[in-house]
């Protein structure tokens, strides 16, 4: 079980979190339909680090982007996303 360092709550066990999807499966708003479907179904699945959307569902409920290594399962970065993190 992963130990995920929530930016709001600190390190917490994976069972407090839910996985949503990979970042690369999200097409930008206004993408053309064919491109949007390609993005949805053709994922890079890299043999290494990838960005994933998770949520601290059973904690602060924040949406997070984890940079997770698919080979070693190490989590190299965690950042919160939402209106409050907009530049």
């Amino acid at each position: 079980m992963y130990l995920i360092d929530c930016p709001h709550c600190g390190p917490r066990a994976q069972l407090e979190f839910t996985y949503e999807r990979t970042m690369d499966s999200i097409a930008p708003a206004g993408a053309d339909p064919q491109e949007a479907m390609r993005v949805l179904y053709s994922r890079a699945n890299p043999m290494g680090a990838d960005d994933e959307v998770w949520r601290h569902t059973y904690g602060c409920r924040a949406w997070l982007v984890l940079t997770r290594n698919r080979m070693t399962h190490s989590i190299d970065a965690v950042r919160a996303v939402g209106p409050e993190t907009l530049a």
Partner: protein
Amino acid sequence: MSAGPSRISPGGETVTFTFDAVTYCARAGDTLAAALLANGVGLVARSFKYHRPRGIMAAGIEEPNALVTVGEGGRAEPNTRATDLFVYEGMVAKSQNAWPSLSLDLGAALGLASPALPAGFYYKTFFGPAKRWMRYEWLIRRAAGLGNAPTLPDPDKFAQRAAFCDVLVVGAGPAGIKAALEAAESGAQVMLVEQDAVLGGSLHRDPDPECDAAWIAASAARIAALGGRILLRTTASGYWDHNFLTLTQRLAEPGAVPAHGFAQQLWHLRAGRVVLATGVIERPIPFTNNDRPGVMLAGAVRTYVRRYGVLPGRRVVIAANNDDAYRTAAALIEAGAEVLAILDSRSSSTADAPDGVPVLYDARPTHVSGTAHRLSRVTALVREREQSWTADLLAVSGGFVPVAHLHMQAGGKLDWNEAAQAFVPGVTHQNCVTIGAAADPVPATPAAPAGHPKKSFVDFQNDVSLADIDLAWQEGYRSVEHLKRYTTLGMATDQGKTSNMVALSRLAERGHVSVPQAGLTTFRPPFTPVTMGLFAGAGARNAAAHERRLALYDLHEARGPVWQPLGYWFRPRAYTLGSETLAEAALREARGVRTSVGLTDVSTLAKFEVSGPDAAALLEIVCATTVSKLAAGRGRYTFMLREDGMVFDDGTVWRLAEDRYLLTSSTGGADRMASHLSFVRNVLRPELRVSVVNVQEHHAGIAFAGPKASTLLAGLIGEAPPRHMSLARAVIAGVPVLLLAASYSGERAFEIYAEATQAQPVWRALAAAAEAEGGAPYGMDAMELLRIEKGHVVVGGEVDGRTTPRDLGLDKMLNKAGGFIGANGLQRPALSEPGRIELVGLEALGGEIAEGAMLIGAGGGAPQGHVTAAGRRVIEGGAIALAHLAGGHARRGEELTAASPTRGITTRVRVVAPHFYDPAGERYRD
């Protein structure tokens, strides 16, 4: 001197137990295996497939043969290793897989037919005619097997807890104790876990003057004094990501009544660093009848002699390929046994044999013989010449296998150690290290087996012999993973702890490759079997899912309804009166709605308040229908799509004010919708100025429906109620309410929302008004009848994740401007091709329609769809249904067969439009 196992010096027995209904005495601290040997019991089990007599082979958790069922009733624990079970007063243990008894086992007759059960025989039975297979299957299932699972509920409780430590040490042998002590002295928070009931590990078979009992006790005391925690009878059974381990702790021995009600405890442990001092498992040697009682691992012999004071035999031959087994000769002689010979398969050794014990080099056992209970003769090839001994014990050692299971579970690699002929822990990316014998096993030299392959067993628990491995090889199974599945080698409760390396060596020999080239199967958790109740923990007996009660629960309960679970909620299914059946009550309630008025609790619907300048913009992303054109005070039906264009939920959207909306959606999808809205708002469109608040439980909701609903409501609120799909605020029984004029039933109807804590007077007032006019509350079954007749879809029924808006006949409502989630997915060409599964209505041409029935065309053939919901015309009677049918929209008027073999109902039906009642929607309007 009598042959067979016995106690070295008698006396000291204080505990009594039974094995197969015979009462025996044991010393405190004995395992069941030690106690049985002390009592001269050699035969303890029958093997899985051939029912061969089996005895005790090991002294630890690797034991493949001596499996027993211990305890009685719901507390019975099958497949418990006699070597991992400490005897307690009154313990009841039974042998398994033998009938009528271990000694007189009729299943043993199967052993004579063993040529008919070679490797893969089970798969080969698939090739015959199906009827014959059914007969094999019955026979195989009866004859083969381990213990039986108890049929009664487990009376014991299982605890779960979480913990942290800086350093976890697994295994409390000399290396583990030293490591734990060192870590504790350095200031680390230490946990030391040991699956045995005592600390010391190998010290109990191989005493070390520097690590004697006093040293063990002093070390343990020091670790504890420094704040460390030592857990006995605790197995690190799973090693997961990020140094997370699951520990299974026995608080009572298997089958025993736990002192505080808790039988076991599961630890969820996060460790900074993990030290694996897990030791080794000794390899058996294959030769003819090497599975007989009286053949025992050499290290286990030392353990029985030195730890338990039990002599597994009096006239002993030792067969080995390493120096370690020589120590067994010394232990046996100390205890007064006679060691007839050490058969060393190597051509020389520098190991010291005790005085007077002949050492024979180039010597390999070929076979043993004896009764089901006792060994009597050992035969070996010594420099290629046969030689025999009259002996009651053969101690064997084929080398040592590091217990690298946890290391591998952690994602670590294994390295091949040529000198030890074993895989040892290699690199790992987790903060974990292996120390002691597991990191540095005793050297051993491989030797070719000298017995008959058919009776030379490799996997004792699954009755896999060298011949079975050879057969699998001949039949083309080259990969070790295939070999495992084909022969069942390494499966079942011991997961090949004693057999994997012997099998790999054989595979490598066959393929003329090195052992590491032959490969290795993956070790997966748990290390040793875990009782299922431990995973459930406090979640057993339904405690895992909470139960939610409606705000109006008391009022419903007073009417004695039949309750229906719906997600976490319980809703009234029907309010049965007198001797009414559920179906009768539902029909009466539904008729009440059609002819007069009824009321029902709709509080569980998902509800969200969406507000802010961009509220409409957010809703137009989530909803596939137009929202922004909705005037304040108005509402409409809506549905939501996944990105692939499939409908996943539906509901209504209401414009409460210029920048404020109320969105309702299905009860069952409430959590999913909450998460979806949050994802869209925070991840997809963080720039929107909008707030989404989940108000599901803030409001209690009551639907008030029927031709008399409008008039009655007007009487209660003192003004004309809102028109269909409009909203109004009012006061009922002194409570402020929100009135949404929407109809699910097909009648003029209102959803009336009040703050949950104040809703009871509202229900009472509505119920009294309804009952004065012959109306009544209705439950979910009546609601189902009403919505089927009206052709409204239900999430989880007609909306099953495979249907598009067009399939459901909803495409005219789609937002033409696009921009909603799913708009891109809907443009995929296959979603507009003819022949898709489409929503239709069905009318029975007589009889009932079964829910789930398959729809078969006039010419027979494959099913073309299925019945999603079966109902009846509420007033006129007659069975109707909603269904998914391939190309259904174009098939109105066609006759089909709705067949449900499982319910035994087959009906002729006609395809019609999915609107059986008031298709023009005239009854909604005043």
